[in-house]
């Protein structure tokens, strides 16, 4: 049970934590934070499982995938933030009208 699995479990728990926050919180900024935490969780799982046997170098493909994932998530967050500002301007509130579920 090397330390890698510890991080993998941490990744899973971050994923679930983010999912819970996304569903529970209504404020849009919190939802965007929750999405970011979830994606960090998924990336953690990806990279942690890539270095399971210590003797060989860790597998670089997941690393590349995670870097791509980080850039994708930053662009999605940027769009989400600007969209949130527009929603706030148009509806005056920071929440989605009918408390859409997740």
């Amino acid at each position, binding site marked *: 049970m090397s330390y890698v699995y510890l991080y993998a479990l941490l990744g899973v728990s971050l994923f679930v934590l983010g999912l819970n926050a*996304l569903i529970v919180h209504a404020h849009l900024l919190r939802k965007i934070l929750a*999405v970011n935490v979830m994606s960090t969780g998924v990336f953690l799982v990806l990279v942690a499982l890539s270095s399971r046997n210590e003797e060989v170098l860790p597998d670089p493909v*997941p690393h590349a995938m995670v870097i791509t994932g980080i850039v*994708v998530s930053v662009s999605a967050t940027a769009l*989400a933030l600007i969209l949130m500002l*527009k*929603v706030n301007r148009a509806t005056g509130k920071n929440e989605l009208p009918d408390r859409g579920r997740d």
Partner: protein
Amino acid sequence: MELILGDVPWIVVLIILPLTGGMACFLFPAISKSLGLLTSLAVVACVWGLGWQLEEEGAQRYAIGGWGAPLGIDLYADGLSLLMLVVAALVGLGISVYSCGYFSPDKANHFWPLWLFLCGALNALFLSSDIFNLYVTLELLGLTAVALVALADGAEALTSAMRYLLISLLGSLFYLLGVAFLYHSFGSLDIAILAQRAEPSPAVWAAVGLISTGLLLKTALFPMHFWLPAAHACAPTPVSALLSALVVKASFYILLRMWLEIFPMVGTSFAQLLGLLGAAAVLWGGIQALRQTRLKLLIAYSTVSQLGYLFLAFPLGTSLAWKGALYMLLSHAMAKAAMFMAAGNILVLGGHDRIAELSSITQRLPLTLTAFTLAGISIMGLPPSGGFIAKWLLLQASIESGQWWWGIILILGGLLAAAYVFKVIGHVFTQDEPTRQAGTLPTTMEWSALVLALVAVLLGLFTSWPLAIMEIGSPFGTGHSG
């Protein structure tokens, strides 16, 4: 001619062309309209070229960067992806022609680059055979779709765009976690290699669950459909036509591709669940569509219902059922795009789309009305239309495989569709005199709707050509029967 057609790698050109078109429109906004139209035409030509190549040599695999499957990324084109490309190209052309007349100049500058990037993302998605690459294309598709929905300036449009973005991101993350599990248990990201190496294990079960949930979120299957009607109804018309006809189908395509190749060993219990959800979608979507008072919301709920049909093919599993589902996808894309364009015409001329007061507007739009009726015939699945052929194939598959209850769902869905289509058409035969609203509609907007509706109807008569396309590379040959 054969020489040129033969060795041009159409498969790559199909992806690069829309991207370059998008960049060009972004660089030179003044001429974005003509550039966009030109690119759409060129994409149709490329799809024709690829179809010609596939006809010659069967399914085609193209290793990008020359590295080959496990290391590099492969593009794979067979009958299934060619059919989706044809749908995307034809509906895309119709939408490009329609949006030439639809957008005000400053909105058009934003519309064309986004639309061409979306077209590029669609082509990349249909051609890729690498599951992480599919994640990136899904993300590109999601962001462009959200940006396009947010083009319409209403509070409603912005909130539905926000909800759509959150759902899209959530779906992608579920999908990515599934990809992580698959990669770490089988060591490759390529679908073909995964198909050979996959055998049932807890990791695969989890991956199936995660990937399916993620993709079902993006396909808006029944329990997770709440974001679709608002997004499709409040978006600008060409965008809602785009979303209903193409974007929602892209995630269905990935689920289908995965289901046929990597998950065949998954028990039928999961397939039955998908079938049940599909049946619930058909009935729920139909009933909701019947209760709507606004035309675009009615059509959006009709999309929710029609998507349910596609999932009925999962529990059946025979190659006939898959062909029926694909034919339904093809004719629904054409008919739904035509319907949304017709609704858009009514909205632009009349200023509102309340169904009760449609009659005075439709008196002045005979072409749009014919387009809506023909598209309605295909949605209902009445004979001279593609919808009928799809319904016939699905019914035959359901009876042959002994699970006749899916057939009953199909029939009930058809009745519900007839109810809500005729609810709209019924308002046309009234004695009100035409509206005196000023301004006329550019004819390209009416004709593009009519042409797409005609294609949906002609699909009912000339079925040999689409069926032949589905056969290339026998994507369903491996599907377990029964």
